[in-house]
């Protein structure tokens, strides 16, 4: 099996896995980073969202080959202590129901706000549209993203 070196949350790791193993399963099963979730495996639910060099990526369809030399950030590395403005907003709004989709939601929102720090409500809905929430906590997800935007301004 090939050996890959990948950088996750600022730390380098060397892993021996088959070349087709998606980043998602490397994170979860080999690096013990369980915050990134499996929902569909075909890039349609967003629960597995991570950042690759700051851009959102569906880790269930990303191979290690594709992330060589790149910086990967997972929910565990978004902030040291859960104090990212989006995490704070998520807590203030009390967004989760079951909670399973929420790490992916936050990662999608974080990458989006970096590109567009002052979005309109419609732009937020559009940006978050790729992330499913089966519990349908969508209304609160929107509120939390709007709150983070507002808090960032003040």
């Amino acid at each position, binding site marked *: *099996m090939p050996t890959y070196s990948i950088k996750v949350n600022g730390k380098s790791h060397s892993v021996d896995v088959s070349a087709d193993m998606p980043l998602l399963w490397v994170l979860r099963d080999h690096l013990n980073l*369980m915050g990134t979730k499996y929902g569909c495996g075909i890039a*349609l639910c967003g629960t597995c969202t991570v950042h690759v060099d700051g851009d959102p990526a569906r880790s269930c369809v990303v191979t290690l080959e594709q992330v060589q030399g790149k910086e990967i950030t997972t929910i565990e590395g978004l902030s040291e*202590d859960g104090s990212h403005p989006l995490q704070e907003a998520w*807590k203030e709004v009390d967004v989760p129901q079951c909670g399973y989709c929420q790490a992916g939601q936050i990662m999608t929102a974080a990458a989006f706000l970096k590109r567009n720090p002052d979005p309109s409500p419609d732009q937020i809905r559009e940006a*978050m*549209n790729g992330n*499913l929430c089966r*519990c349908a906590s969508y*209304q609160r997800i929107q509120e939390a993203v709007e709150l983070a935007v507002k808090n960032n301004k003040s």
Partner: protein
Amino acid sequence: MKTTSLAGGGLLIGFNLFESCKPGVEPPVDLASLDYNDFNAFIKIADNGAVTIFSPNPEIGQGVKTAMPMIIAEELDVAWKDVYVLQAPLDTKNFTRQVAGGSQSIRHGWEPLRQTGATARQLLVNAAAARWGVDPRECTTKEGIISNAKGETLGYGDVVQEAAALEIPEDVALKSVKEFSIIGQEIPNVDLDEIVTGKPLFGLDYKKEGMVIACVLRPPAFGQKLVSVEESGARALPGVLDVIRFGDKVAVLAQDTWTAMKGKAALKAEWGNDEPLESTEDHDRILTDLLDGREFTTMRKDGNVEKAFAEADMVLERTYESPFLPHNCMEPMNFYADVTPERIHLVGPIQTPEGTAHQIAEVLGRDFSEISLEMTRQGGGFGRRLYGDFAVEAAEVSNLAKRPVKVVFTREDDMADGIYRPAIKYRIKASVRDGQITGYHLKEAAINSNMYGLIPNFFPAGALENYQVDVAKFDSKITTGAWRAPYTNFLAFAEQSFFDELFEQMGADKIQSRIDLLEKVKGTTDDRIQYSPGRMQEVIRMAAEKSGWGTPKEGVYQGFAAYYCHNSHVAEVADVVMENGEPVVKRVVCVVDCGIVINPSGARNQVEGGVIDGIGHALYGNFAFRDGRPQALNFNDYRLIRMNEIPRVESYFVQNEESPTGLGEPALPPAGAAMANAIFAATGKRLYNQPFVNALKDVKIPEKEIIG
């Protein structure tokens, strides 16, 4: 109830929600030696006053892990910030209802949880009073501090050791609703910090030394059996540890999930069937034949509907159709099992831990007492995790492989090996004479099983002299079961759409007509009628008022629905506007009477989620079979509602002092009807079949990868 001092300091109070503790049980001396078979759930108070409360019921996103401990903390009279909550494991010896189902956790837990908290509080007060040498009745408590008449104070932590030695008080006083300081507060989800930082909370996240992953190949079509399997492709994959055939299934064991998935895909199986396989067209025809036929079981019969129809000025008859639905919990089914000759250890997401443990004991021919089961947080339930098939598989595979195993479903497995909401058709017929509804006949034709319990006695039962409910079913090989708000999730749509059309044809006012019908139910002595006509009228009036019913803004069309289920009363108004020639739901006002609201934040979350779930599945949910095979396996073929398709949900709760009732389900059933009725107002088009999207043109499923 039992108490004991902890070796490490503090007091442990074992409590029992539903029965007294078994006699002769010795309390443990510290948490490490705690025997869960003796202490199902408990309050732990440390010397420093910190309180740990174990939450008994499974948490599937409905919020009981926050709400149930809130009830204990309220009567215990501690500050919520000092409370730490843990999930209790299964204890079948003492509990009678450790289940997440039917929206009943809070309703059933309400009294016993309050008693538990209040008894513990009294015990602590008695200990303080004894130390001061005063009458306990002179003492008061507030946020974990006990005060006496002289103004002296002691913290709960100061007296826990003495309290542990005292006798358990009986007949303790409960707080009045006005005294509540935690119940009714906006309390955030107790796992919030862990969720937003990605801590391992869920079944899929559970890891144990020596554990391997198993992916299971199951018959691809309902009704098929395994004829043969070629395992060599799977065995040849590096990382595949074993291939195990059990029944008509084949498990591939590997060190990691991806390898197990690949191994499963590399199996080449041949399948066969003795009987013909079923398709959706067959079901469609069979259900219609059932409705047209004469073979029914009558669930309720008042007066004579046939006579009412014969004497009517007008008769309206409509048929409503719904497909199968998969649950699609965001976290696919999975379970951990470690079966050894000595014991069986099970961990994972399950709504029915007790029933599942019994099932496993039976399948493996083991004693129930050998089983210990821990519940993880669960990435959704919706009824799917009431069925422990995946846990049984894990136990079977672990038993055969002789090692700890976690069975993991792929999304495709999750959709293809479901216990689906059954396809159902309703036919409703009503008669009108002299401007009054005189008869109502509801027929149900369903796959596998029919409506149960008190559903045939829901509204309009009791409001009409001539009323009948008849049911019929077809036994299918496709597995079906409970799906959030079973039966009512579609029946509410059929019934409330029917009334909308009936009132329209009668030229009657849609709100007043409902109120008038409910008026007739008042004073009923029929104990099968458990909905309250008065409470129903109140939510109807309030929804009309909050939504601005009758005076919508220009271009806004409204639809009304009201429904009672899971002991709660709900009314909803949907606002629809036309965008690019298509009706779009923009807002839903939802008024709920579920009695005392324990946690308004969690309660609103359930209402918002329930309404959107109802709208989403009514609009898009579709699940067909061809030759026994599901025609959708993942989100490319199965459409769930997404962020830019949702209405704004405004939720309101009736303020009263009634005991709390269900909230995980009741907001869902009326949502489809409110939307359909609004779509009629906007377009003149009546919707009879779900999913609505088939009748509303031009709505596409995203085909390409969507990146935030």
